[in-house]
């Protein structure tokens, strides 16, 4: 599987990561190598094999629906890049 520069740009967009234009060829080369490497999986005969998502066969535990967290807004916002009046600030989304 060989990825071209445009493929890398498209994947980087899906992952919301800005990649310097100069670094794109190196990423294309290494990602292609990795995909070639994982193509070895095609050697495995997996017909009828149940996919394994998790190592332990366990049911999802449920908890009682009650409040367990206390309000720590100030503490959490003290490490935020930008806050104002108790709100996290991000660039304007709706004009």
């Amino acid at each position: 599987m060989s990825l071209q520069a445009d493929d890398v740009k498209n994947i980087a967009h899906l992952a919301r990561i800005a990649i310097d234009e100069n670094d794109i060829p190196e990423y294309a080369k290494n990602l292609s190598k990795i995909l070639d490497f994982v193509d070895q999986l095609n050697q495995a005969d997996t017909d009828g094999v149940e996919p394994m998502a998790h190592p332990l066969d366990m049911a999802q535990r449920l908890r009682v629906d009650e409040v367990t967290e206390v309000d720590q807004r100030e503490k959490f916002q003290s490490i935020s890049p930008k806050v104002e009046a108790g709100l996290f600030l991000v660039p304007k989304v709706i004009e």
Partner: protein
Amino acid sequence: MHKKTLAQLSAALQAKEISSVELTQEFLARAKQFNEQTNAYITITEDLALQQAKEADARIAAGNTQALTGIPLAHKDIFCTDGIKTSCGSKMLDSFIAPYNATVIEKFNAAGAICLGKANMDEFAMGSSNENSFYGVVKNPWDLNCVPGGSSGGSAAVVAARMAAAATGTDTGGSIRQPASFCGISGIKPTYGRVSRYGMIAYASSLDQGGPMAQSAEDLAMMLEVMAGFDPKDSTSAQKDVPQYSAAMNDSLEGVKIGLPKEYFGEGLDAEVATVVETAIEEYKKLGVEFAEVSLPNTHLSVPAYYVVAPAECSSNLSRFDGARFGHRCEDPKDLEDMYKRSRGEGFGEEVTRRILVGTYALSAGYYDAYYLKAQKTRRLISDDFKKAFADVDLILGPTAPTTAFGIGSKTDDPISMYLSDIYTIAVNLAGIPAMSIPAGMAGGKPVGLQLIGNYFDEAKLLNAAHKYQQVTDWHQQMPEGF
């Protein structure tokens, strides 16, 4: 004092031969002195350590102690520590002061252990050499030109140079065992779900598992008794009691059956490493162990399966780092998408970016079945290999890594060759079973690790087998020169 085992340190503290403050000061001095050469710590928490040591001394005076009360430890910088920078080795979290403690940290605090600092690591635990840290490579105390292994490279170096009495690590594909092997220390990756993942920054959630790194199996048992146990805050935490690991350490190995997977002794294994493992097998035979050949025929597919499953999970887990509520944010974002893209582009290093991109691709429309589903099916085959083997044997033994510690910079240009240094450790994580590495000899002046693999929740059996070996050998007591 720094050469003493945890049990010896604990006894010295209880007998008031030394106070926790004095012991902590000794380790702090070593940590500061040797950090210049090794770069093993990202943060040394001197004030916190001395405060905790005073409290530990008060507990000891009041007779209210546990085994690890007053003992100075290092924690991998992946565990959230309330009020203390928790960087995960990344520029993304360089400014992140964790607002809460990981469950593992809470447990050590409750036991009265001392936090000396936060150990260096590969960024977001992605790497096998500690060269992917934003804070620079850690140097192996046995050879400062070599890597300590990764991703828990800082923790391994800290223990090897005795810059703490023991340390915590995490293991997603070998990140406790491979650095333990490279640095000549002992480390155990417990069964998936045995140690809480709450507050342990997630990389690949179906593989991640925390565990201890220390001088000996005996020390690991003491650490694991504190770390392990059910945690309601971790939805995949195992609801099983924690056995008293220390109690079964001296059980006889007479008649214990250990499997040797032929796939772990083939092409790619360094000849000197193979010799060390063979010598260890002879040692085990003297202890009454019976050996049998077993086969793990899908071993060669474990690294490819891992490099689909782990990146897929990481691309999802690391989407939380968006520059909005915490972590790195770029300067003057022009809109929301620009903020996401540049904050992440600037905050993540190259290997992390690579894995997020691989995972994004593997999960994207049209490729899911070919990559992710195929890898999950292969994961089942790999896991079934172990199930079959454990029908015939109690434990499995082999090398931890195909070579000893390699030179700094020697594999950085070729991600695949770096990935293959985890060839003997990765399958264990895919299956979710426990495994450990213990020092078993030297090759070219560098330590060689012996890997022991157990069935689900058989940590006691693993620690027992490792301890018996360490009773008749002294590799675990050796220290690098100059420390």
